[in-house]
């Protein structure tokens, strides 16, 4: 590998590195240790101060600081990154498989004369060759791909342990100005629209807690809603629950309701009738709880349990709150 080795293109939100950034650092750290080369974290931001003392698991943190680098702008970011990466000439660039990363991969790969691979869940070094494992067809197949250097690998969130993205010391920090920003911009950032609190479009919520008949009464929905809140998600329901009037029709998932593809679908007291499954089977992760061990939902879920949901839910909410509190 070339002297500069591996670069992680960091993403930040509200003065903190995002989870996927830490996961990329964990991945990069593992590879850099194996290759014996350095790991650089490259951060574009309008305010570098919050990052200088972070014990990121990189050998070097390069902060490009400029007011124009506040909001994400694919053209601006691509230009600045290209400038930086051409100078660094890494063998491997890690990007998040995110809204930002996916905009940058194509243009950057051409600017650097490299090859991009998206949807990766694992990156390895085999005999000096970068081998990435990528998810295809919504996870139905995995592809092991060898990528010539310089490689741009887009890493899927949740692929590496976040905690390994930090370690016991602070990397060497370099702050630079925004070279490469000069010139007319064809893309201009005009701000961010925050979502309205009331409108819940279930299709846009990453975590859904599905309430089925096992919830038993309308009052019990309260604990389900607490759980959804703790998960940063929303409550949805099967048709019988909505028919009872416990939740509005906009919360119904299934054949005559919404089709959702959340990252997590927690199915509580749901039997798994085909009409409902049709609406949620493409969730990334389904965890189902139903006292009936033979419920068809267990053919759709990756994980299941047969404990009583009315006992489980309050305990689960408490544990989640505790786990978040430690962050």
């Amino acid at each position, binding site marked *: 590998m070339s002297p500069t080795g591996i670069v992680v293109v960091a993403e930040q939100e509200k003065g903190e590195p995002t989870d*996927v950034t830490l996961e990329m650092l964990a991945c990069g750290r593992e590879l850099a240790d194996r290759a014996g080369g350095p790991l650089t974290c490259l951060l574009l931001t309008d305010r570098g101060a919050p990052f200088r003392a972070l014990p990121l698991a990189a050998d070097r943190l390069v902060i490009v600081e400029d007011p124009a680098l506040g*909001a*994400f702008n*694919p053209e601006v970011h691509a230009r600045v990154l290209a400038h930086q990466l051409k100078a660094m000439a890494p063998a491997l660039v890690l990007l998040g498989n995110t*809204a930002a990363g*996916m*905009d940058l*991969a*194509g*243009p950057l*790969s*051409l600017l650097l004369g490299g*090859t991009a*691979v*998206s949807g990766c869940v694992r990156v390895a070094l085999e005999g000096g060759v970068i*081998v990435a494992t990528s998810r*295809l*067809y*919504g*996870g*139905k*197949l*995995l*592809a*092991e*791909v*060898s*990528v*010539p250097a310089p490689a741009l690998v*887009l890493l899927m969130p*949740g692929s590496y342990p976040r905690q390994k993205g930090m370690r016991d010391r602070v990397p060497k920090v370099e702050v630079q100005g925004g070279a490469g920003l000069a010139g007319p911009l*064809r*893309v*201009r*950032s*005009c*701000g*961010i*629209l*925050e*979502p309205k609190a009331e409108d819940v479009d279930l299709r*846009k919520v*990453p975590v859904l807690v599905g309430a089925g008949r096992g919830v038993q009464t309308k009052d019990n929905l309260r604990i389900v809603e607490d759980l959804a809140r703790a*998960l940063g998600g929303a409550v949805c329901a099967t048709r019988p629950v909505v028919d009872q009037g416990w939740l509005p029709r906009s919360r119904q998932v299934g054949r005559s309701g919404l089709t959702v593809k959340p*990252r*997590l679908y927690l199915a509580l007291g749901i039997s798994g009738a085909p009409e409902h499954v049709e609406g949620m089977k493409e969730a990334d*992760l389904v*965890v*189902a*709880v139903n006292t009936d061990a033979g419920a068809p939902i*267990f053919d759709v*879920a990756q994980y*299941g*349990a047969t*404990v*009583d949901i009315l006992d*489980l839910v309050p305990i*689960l909410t408490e544990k*989640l709150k505790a*786990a978040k509190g430690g962050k």
Partner: protein
Amino acid sequence: MKAAVVLRQVPDVVEDLVIAGDGRSLSEEDVMYITNELDEHALEQALLLKARHSGTVTAIGLGGDAARDALATSVAKGADEAVFVPVDFAARGDNVVLSSHLASALREGGYDVILAGVHAADQLDAGLGGLLAARLGVPYVGGLTGVQLDAGGRTAVVHKEYPGGRLGVLEVDLPAVLGIQSAEQPPRYVPVSKVLQAKRALQVKEVRGPLPQVAGVTVRKLLKPESATHAKMLQGDEDAVATQIVALVKERGLL
């Protein structure tokens, strides 16, 4: 307004995906093709723009014969022109090859805006839209859920989707390539009779010529992940199960 939409044919996952004997590709005879879902959204968005700003929509179908059917459906929905770009089985999922091949075809077109789905189920490399834009030397923004053109047709204001329902608002000078995440309304329905009519009357421009020889990603192996035909049952009482669920949630980066 002159818009182009790229419609790729991708393997339909309703059918079981069969890995070919070489272990590195799909078995061609077992594949049933369907238009990439996000490309359907791109077409819908293009048709919405046409309704708002008048102009034309050119549908570009990439792939094998299934692409022709997709073009008939696109015309039935309201596209004005149909262009068929035949692509060999082996290259159908290679965006590096496709973007290079398309760039030459699109350069002549004088399109103000080129729309494509931001992602395809069969893609291994960078998204088609970004690569295409880079080759054409035009800007690219992806992950869009809304597109508006200004009165003069010189700029587009787009809504870019971020997690948690947040939307980034960006102004883009045209011509540009836009990667669509979801159209402002679900892809419209077109009755079967209209599609059959369109099929009969379809006039397709074909883009012939060899595929460019560009180096892309090399697949070493295709494998099926451990299939979970039945859930892994978590053991223990409510407390134990809760602990295990919290671990799962953290592991997936969802906390």
